[in-house]
């Protein structure tokens, strides 16, 4: 009995992002579609993913982790479809993902609002560097509590 798409989504939601392990690849918004495709000798599970940044070193690891997780759940035929368009955007980050980021000390992307310190919630912050420890983050400092923090930048 093949797993339903909903079950597969739950499994994928347990696959952590290799760089920011508190959020899953589903939270991150890179899993776009899950579907069974009929073929000779059985159905293939097609998982469509959209990479974050073109040169993100984690992309390959993510693909491997997704495949490994599905095999662990007994899916024998997996096909990963890497789709570029529409391009990934931080708008696809789930609400749960945003909350997990904040709790982890990373200010989540805010398109409309100002960046707030994830530690003390102050808006009195300054940019230290446009780029942080991974392609998706920028480095900030809170002027209220003096702590530096990562900001998951809007993309």
């Amino acid at each position, binding site marked *: 009995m093949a797993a339903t798409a909903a079950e597969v989504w739950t499994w994928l939601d347990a696959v952590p992002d290799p760089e920011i392990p508190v959020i899953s690849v589903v939270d991150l918004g890179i899993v776009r579609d899950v579907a069974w495709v009929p073929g000779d000798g059985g159905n293939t599970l097609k998982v469509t993913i959209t990479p974050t*940044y*073109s*040169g*993100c*070193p984690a992309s390959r690891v993510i693909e491997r982790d997704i495949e490994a997780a599905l095999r662990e759940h007994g899916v024998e035929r997996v096909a990963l479809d890497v*789709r*570029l*368009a*529409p*391009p*990934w*955007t931080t708008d696809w980050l789930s609400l749960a993902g945003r909350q997990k980021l904040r709790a982890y000390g990373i200010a989540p992307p805010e398109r409309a609002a100002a960046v707030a310190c994830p530690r003390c919630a102050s808006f009195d912050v300054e940019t*230290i*560097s*446009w*780029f*942080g*420890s*991974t*392609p998706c983050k920028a*480095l900030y400092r809170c002027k209220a509590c003096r702590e530096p923090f990562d900001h998951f*930048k809007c*993309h």
Partner: protein
Amino acid sequence: MSAPAERARVEFLLRMGDNALVLGQRVAAWTGHAPVVEEDLALSNVALDLVGQARLWLAYAGECEGLGRDEDRLAFFRDANEYRNVLLVERPNGNYADTMGRQFLFDAWHVELLRALAASRDERISAIAQKAEREVTYHLRRSGDWVIRLGDGTEQSHALMQAAVDDLWPYTGELFRSDEVERELAARGEGCELEGLHDAWSARVAAVLAEATLVRPKDGWMHAGGRRGRHSEHLSYLLAEMQSVPRAIPAERW
């Protein structure tokens, strides 16, 4: 599709890929050498984006070419005269003003080109351009900031930034001169003519230079030829370093 049309597309994709790859390699050389750790991270990330974009363009070039060359084969086993990048991106890193000036002049052009290509009738070209455009918009914000910071900085940083812009300016003409490759792609709605990008580029560059208290150099004689494989000697050294390992052990996979 006719053979000449297909050749034009391969040629165009090589140009896109080689621009990103050569500049990515140049910028990556700063890793471990940048003046402060934040700049080290920033430059490494910009380089990563560019190399990632190069991979997307070159993989597609290899597929269209149909000779079984993948992106690694194209990157590591072509010589300088087979490279199709503009001369601007192979300019040496020099000092920080040289690196940031080169980045800014290129980013300001790159972003306009990618915006135009996002409307390409070729789905793959459009997808890569849409993805890269977001990344390059971010690069441009940063490189423009640096030009302003150095230009409107100390006496010394101002002098170095002006010298960098003066030195790089003769390499910007090539960015806006279409040949039969761009014209062929534009005619089929897959690409665009480069002349059309000039006004937007020029306006942005003028605004940043003005804010940086720098003088916009006069348009004089311009270098050209990179997109047709005629390069400065600098490219050969860059490729020698970049290609040495795969060429030493060509059967290795990693």
